[in-house]
């Protein structure tokens, strides 16, 4: 019998049973599958089938013999079935919009799991749902054609805690290095996917842009046993920069600035991690920067309603930067 067919038959058997199903019952029901050849091989075959059923979400467990019941396998039907109640139509609709946008972006880790979860949601909501009208562009880079597959592999490695071998290309050094990495997690920042993990080559936690991975393989040995533990205190957010000035180029500098006029009410979205004070027509902020020039360039781009107020070094650098831009755009272009 085809394995897919046998597994579905097993689901039907277990869901229908009112008493524990013994190994003898199972073997008797599938004589061609589990009754030919050495019994050890048949048991191993059933163990593999059982593992697949568990992975599919069938809560199968073995119960020891009771007062009037034999030992055998049982399924908790209530734990198996997807509950009907709970999500309201508007919640389902917006969840669907989010899920299908992520899926359509073409660069989402766990895309197959997501596709299936959306089908489940379709089961609850019924057919002919309106077009969700939310579109996402992820990994918006010229060299991104291998990104979806890399993300899928990396997410599988993250969730099963298997180490990966990767060839990583740095555009700064223009070198490709081969590394073994314990993948701790994936984080998306401004459309770019980051892999954070323990790098065996550098003996520390490192962040990699997934689109700069040139080759990738997941450790295939002992797929069911994890290769590493993620340290309890580890947080992804500590290792990925959302904004350019959060790149770790130097020790943190506390930069103070003001936003006035129309920019004042936008303080929280322009500087999400800045500490803004007051709600008046001018707002003062303190922003910690580990790449000062990147912060100054950003402030410059916001126009005259954004001003740096300290420290002096930051003011001087901003002035030098603005002067350079001003001179480069004076008169006719050179060359």
């Amino acid at each position, binding site marked *: 019998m085809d394995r*897919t067919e046998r597994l579905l*038959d097993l689901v039907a058997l277990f*869901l229908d049973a009112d008493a524990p199903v013994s190994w003898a019952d199972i073997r008797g029901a599938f004589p061609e599958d589990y009754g030919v050849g050495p019994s050890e091989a048949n048991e191993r075959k059933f163990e593999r089938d059982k593992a697949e059923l568990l992975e599919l979400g069938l809560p199968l467990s073995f119960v020891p013999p009771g007062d009037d019941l034999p030992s055998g396998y049982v399924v908790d039907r209530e734990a198996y079935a997807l509950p009907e109640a709970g999500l309201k139509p508007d919640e389902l609709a917006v969840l669907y919009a989010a899920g299908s946008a992520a899926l359509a972006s073409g660069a989402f880790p*766990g895309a197959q799991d997501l596709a299936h979860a959306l089908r489940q949601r379709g089961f609850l909501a019924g057919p002919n749902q309106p077009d969700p009208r939310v579109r996402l562009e992820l990994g918006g880079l010229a060299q991104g054609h291998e990104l979806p597959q890399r993300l899928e592999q990396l997410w599988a490695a993250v969730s099963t805690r298997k180490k990966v071998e990767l060839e990583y290309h740095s555009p700064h050094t223009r070198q490709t290095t081969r590394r073994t990495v314990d993948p701790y997690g994936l984080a998306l920042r401004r459309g770019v996917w980051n892999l954070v993990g323990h790098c065996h080559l550098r003996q520390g936690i490192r962040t990699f842009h997934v689109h700069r991975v040139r080759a990738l393989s997941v450790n295939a040995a002992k797929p069911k046993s994890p290769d590493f533990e993620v340290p309890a205190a580890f947080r992804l957010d500590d290792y990925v920069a959302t904004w350019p000035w959060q790149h770790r180029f130097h020790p943190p500098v506390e930069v103070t600035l003001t936003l006035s006029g129309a920019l004042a009410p936008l303080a929280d979205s322009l500087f999400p991690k800045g500490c803004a004070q007051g709600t008046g027509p001018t707002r003062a902020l303190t922003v910690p920067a580990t790449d000062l020039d990147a912060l100054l360039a950003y402030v*410059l781009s916001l126009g005259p309603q954004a001003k740096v107020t300290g420290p002096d070094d930051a003011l001087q650098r901003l002035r030098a930067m603005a002067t350079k831009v001003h001179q480069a755009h004076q008169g006719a272009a050179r060359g």
Partner: protein
Amino acid sequence: MADAGRTQAHERLRRLLLLVPYVSKHPGLTVDEVAKALGLTREGLLEDLDLLTLVGRPPFSPDDYVDVYVEDDRVWVDLDQRLSTPPRLTAAEGVALAAAAALLGPRPGDALHGALAKLEQVLPKGAREQYRALAQRLDLAADAPPDLAALSQAVVEHREVALDYFTAGTGVTERRVVQPHELFSHRGTWYLSAHCLTRGDERLFRLDRIAKLELTEQRFEAPAKGAGRPVPPESREQGARVRFSPKLSAWVQERFGAAASVLPGGAVEVEIRDDNEAWLTRWVLSFGGEAVVVAPESARAAIAKAAGAAIGLES
């Protein structure tokens, strides 16, 4: 990949476990409707239906098989052999859905936030701990602007929204009432395409320029698909040539690919057909002197003026 075959088999199994419940719950849908709902081609669905007729439970007498069939191009099921309810989401499926939801940055009070709280309850008890552990390994929330989840809800429910919008060109913030049609991200920026009732026109709004947002109870008629969509930024005709210093050359090439041309000496040039002059000015300034507009003259003048203003020059 060594386990690609296994993955495919797993995919098919979980789809099949949903197929019988789906047809039981929505009987008499057309083949195409069922195929679309389950993300299959018509042929793929017919193959799956064929396989299901071989599925049953011991002792496999005629009534022990799944009876699922197509009649007049409609799909029906008579005997479901206990397969009428789909399994709960697994931890991995739950995390994938939660991560997709996190992309829209739900906040307390949003429908999406409510959905996520309930999602955990849909998981089997044994999977919840794994779900929470896995959820920490996938971090996307930081990428969403604050109003994204609320706006998604407005788009999905066709609700008018009132918003304070800052126009970079004029430096003015204005209250607008809009009918939100579509949300999309482009090069890391989120846009809302909407019919602006204040201006009586189709407009694009950048989400990072929206200061205050309220969903009203006013509903509007859903627009026809693709109707009145504003021109996407990259299709504008007038382009600007921007030159980057050798220091940024690797980054520019990574982002623009073959569209970036390398000059003798290591600098690179790209043609930008994005948005308007105010946007271009901001963008060039954000490179802090490492990017220079070569043409057109008007854009050069605008940037010189903006940079001059920062050092107290009235140019």
